[in-house]
């Protein structure tokens, strides 16, 4: 296409030229592609391969061991991720819906703040904030006079709070973008017929922007399932999230087979969502 020379060619030829794949252009993509193949695809494929190899040879032994040792953690991980996801959904729909109707620059700025805080720092900050004698309890003690408050860190509550805190701004930002691209006239028509704002959000804004809402949910769910730093810093000692199991399996037991089996299981948990995301993104880009 870039080689097109409009004066020298008729329109027909141009179309033909556009349709013909430019194999020379592959050379330009090649360095980036080679890096990705060597540093991402090769480890990805070999992690799947290593999950199948154990002392007994090729087979599912690592998976059997992974399930018998870690089935509680698998259920726990999925449950925590789903609970966080529900809360992320409710929070982000409320904020994005509110901001769709009311221009409020301060709130618009405030909710975005966690976007810029890396996961690791979220983990540390929540550790400081939610511990039994943490910053939050100190403040609440001062206001209410109650001395010994339970800490929320080092348990499922701390994990859920940390994940929701980190993930809701992304979901809100994406959803608000989609909500704002829906024209006022459609919403006003519904409101003229007696539709409330809440109802307008639930039955007009959400259904129309459902692809964006899905993308927001996929991105936040995948990074919750795969995050290591937050559960290391604010999780309980037991049960733990799967990334912690993977990490311990390697660092303490030097057991790559089971670690990779857990890795493949985490791929399988998100595979349908990842497929949706990848097809959606390439469709959006118009390629």
């Amino acid at each position: 296409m870039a080689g097109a020379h409009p004066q020298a060619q008729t329109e027909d030829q141009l179309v033909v030229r556009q349709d013909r794949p430019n194999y020379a252009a592959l050379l330009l993509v090649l360095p980036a592609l080679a890096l990705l193949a060597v540093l991402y695809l090769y480890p990805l494929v070999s992690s799947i391969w290593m999950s199948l190899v154990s002392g007994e040879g090729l087979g599912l032994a690592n998976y059997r061991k992974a399930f018998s040792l870690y089935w509680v953690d698998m259920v726990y991980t999925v449950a925590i991720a789903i609970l966080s996801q529900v809360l992320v959904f409710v929070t982000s729909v409320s904020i994005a819906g509110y901001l769709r109707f009311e221009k409020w620059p301060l709130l618009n700025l405030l909710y975005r703040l966690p976007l810029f805080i890396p996961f690791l720092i979220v983990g540390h900050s929540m550790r400081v904030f939610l511990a039994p004698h943490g910053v939050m309890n100190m403040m609440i003690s001062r206001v209410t006079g109650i001395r010994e408050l339970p800490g929320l860190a080092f348990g499922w509550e701390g994990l859920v709070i940390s994940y929701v805190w980190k993930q809701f701004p992304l979901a809100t930002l994406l959803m608000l973008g989609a909500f704002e691209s829906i024209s006022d006239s459609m919403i006003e028509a519904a409101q003229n017929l007696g539709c409330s704002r809440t109802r307008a959000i639930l039955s007009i804004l959400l259904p129309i922007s459902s692809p964006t809402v899905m993308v927001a949910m996929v991105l936040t769910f995948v990074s919750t399932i795969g995050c290591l730093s937050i559960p290391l810093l604010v999780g309980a000692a037991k049960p733990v999230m799967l990334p912690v199991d993977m990490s311990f399996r390697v660092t303490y037991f030097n057991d790559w087979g089971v670690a990779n089996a857990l890795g493949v299981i985490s791929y399988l948990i998100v595979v349908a969502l990842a497929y949706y995301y990848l097809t959606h993104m390439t469709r959006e880009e118009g390629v």
Partner: protein
Amino acid sequence: MWRRGMITRLIVLVVVGFVVIGPLVGTVIWSFAVKWYWPNPLPQELGLKYWANAFGKRSQVLGALGVSMAIALIVVAAALLVSIPAGYALARLNVPWKKAMLVLFLMPQAFPQLPVFITMSSIFYRLNIAGTVVGVTLAHLVVSLVYSVWITTATFKSVPAILEDAAVNLGCTRLKAFFTITLPLAIPGLIASAIFVFLNSLDEFTGTFFIGSPYVRTLPVLMYTASMGYNMQAASVIAVMLTIPSLVFMAVLEKFLKAEYIHGLGV
């Protein structure tokens, strides 16, 4: 009616403010706390002691900052070097299997990255680059490709191809037209891409933790060690140091703020 609205707004602001800012305020206060024993709501003694320690002579923080910066800058340079040609080709030329390639470049974001880092560390161990800056740089680079390839592709798509075609029609070579017309027009987008890659590398923890340990200590790894050892002040000082560049750059980059890109920061 307006009063009810004001009161609702005030309540929303206090709740959202406490929830969103609270944890960060806690970390900032801890970084300036010299003595802070329970149950005081504020530190008994405030001061710059731990900040001075961090920048002092025997500090590990400065060394880690140097390592982090060096890795991030190399990653930016390498990512741009491979992404500019790739982004140009994907945006302008009829590359075969284009869709499949864009999917490949997005994959690190669609699946959990931890298993890849774990396996990468065993591969790097065999190649003798586990525990080295080279290994960590390569790990950061692969995650950065998501941002750099997608942002440069979008950038080159936004520069009208007709400008370059016009120059070529007037006898300019394709290469010269690229360097004098398309590339200068793409600079803002390329800077945005560089900043995303830089921040992602600066904040990266998981890959560094597996591939760099125990010899490569970047700021996030040092912060993690300090926080796990209940060295709250030292950890909070590093946490604040790592947060400032993100906040500053992101304020500058408002225009390029596409949620998907910032999302992966510092996993």
